[in-house]
């Protein structure tokens, strides 16, 4: 039997952490795009679309991410596609992230005073123009801290993809544990790597929030 040194364990975990980072980026960017589309429907003029997107958001916020992963994994299979774990993981995480980001951003857009909508409407702007030139530039500033804060949830959410068999940091942790029989060391290290990924994001979210508040006060 081979002996595993501490360095072997750490190296394997760090190699797997790449996939955690890649998956986080893909879900965050994809989720951002889908989330923005959802946001436009959620606060748009079409009533049917508003109800639909609200239902979507509630469905994804009210069910476990793990179940969504299972459904993506087994649901896509129904179409006769042989679904690799990474694809199911990406799809489920993108849809899940989109629901949360849309709801966060809705709060930001709604925090913009009603007068801004009315003023831009009185200038003859259409809905998209209002959004593009008046509302979004202001809402974006409010949205940055909570969005960065939510990215922490996305990174942590990727841990669940290990359950449908995607080999990222958590799965690597299980595999290395099974090979080394050192669960305490391995899971401790895994936790520390996640911490190293998430903590800077949490901190910068807090800092941004403080900075933004100061800017707000000086208005």
């Amino acid at each position, binding site marked *: 039997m081979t002996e595993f040194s501490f360095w072997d364990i750490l190296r394997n975990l760090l190699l797997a952490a790449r996939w955690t980072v890649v998956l986080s980026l893909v879900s965050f960017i994809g989720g951002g795009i889908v989330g923005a589309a959802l946001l436009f429907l959620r606060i748009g003029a079409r009533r049917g679309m508003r109800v639909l997107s609200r239902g979507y958001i509630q469905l994804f916020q009210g069910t476990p991410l*793990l179940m969504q992963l299972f*459904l993506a994994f*087994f*649901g896509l299979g*129904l179409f006769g596609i042989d679904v690799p774990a990474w694809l199911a993981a990406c799809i489920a995480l993108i849809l899940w992230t989109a629901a949360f980001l849309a709801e966060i951003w809705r709060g930001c857009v709604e925090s913009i005073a009603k007068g801004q909508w009315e003023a831009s409407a009185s200038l003859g702007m259409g809905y998209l123009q209002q959004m593009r030139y008046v509302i979004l530039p202001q809402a974006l500033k409010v949205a940055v801290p909570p969005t960065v804060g939510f990215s922490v949830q996305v990174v942590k959410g990727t841990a669940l993809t290990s359950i449908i068999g995607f080999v990222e940091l958590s799965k690597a942790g299980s595999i290395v544990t099974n090979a080394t029989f050192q*669960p305490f060391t391995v899971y401790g290290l*895994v*936790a520390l790597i996640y911490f190293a990924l*998430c903590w800077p994001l*949490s901190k910068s979210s807090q800092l941004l929030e403080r900075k933004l508040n100061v800017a707000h006060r000086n208005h």
Partner: protein
Amino acid sequence: MTYQFDFGWLIGSLPVLLKGIRITVQLILIGAVFGVALGIACAWVRALGPKWLKPVVATYVELIRNTPFLIQLFFIFFGLPSLGIRMSELTAANLAMIVNLGAYSCEIIRAGIQATPRGQFEAGASLAMTPFQTFWHVVLVPALQRIWPALSSQIVIVMLGSAVVSQIAAEDLTFAANFIQSRNFRAFETYIVSTLIYLALAILLRQLLAGLGWMLFPRKASR
């Protein structure tokens, strides 16, 4: 798509599902009560507690909030036995949920305490109350009332997160779903049903917490 949906297995699997629901409900009830209690204790430390304890609690909160629940669970269930601490999977699941919710609710409750007007503490002190008495009798309840919606959401999030405990073979709703789909080979239908059950549980829990908030904090209390 030529796939035929089949929900015929549902009746036969009902007892397994019900048991899973029972365990999930039991987990979140225990987790919520002790988790919020731990959160209150930690929030007290961070806001008013002894100085030497503050960094300890801060480290705990940051560590838990920045690592996935799954890893916390694995660490407790697989990692701790190497230190001689062994527990059943249900105990480990409960402990992980308490520790997890404790960290999040600490931050939430602390925000509520920090929003308390300074005068409240001074008023308590002028009545010769100790800082702890002031915290317990004067500050805590309005602080909880202020952050109750956020705390409720966090409890629901922890309930949904508890789906993961099936991975250490705690027999919750997800475990039941995994068990059923391994028998009937109807994975999609099984997970759709359990997802809908989770959705119902989440809605129910939210209503329950709203009702509890309504009972605990009578309207007359000022904000």
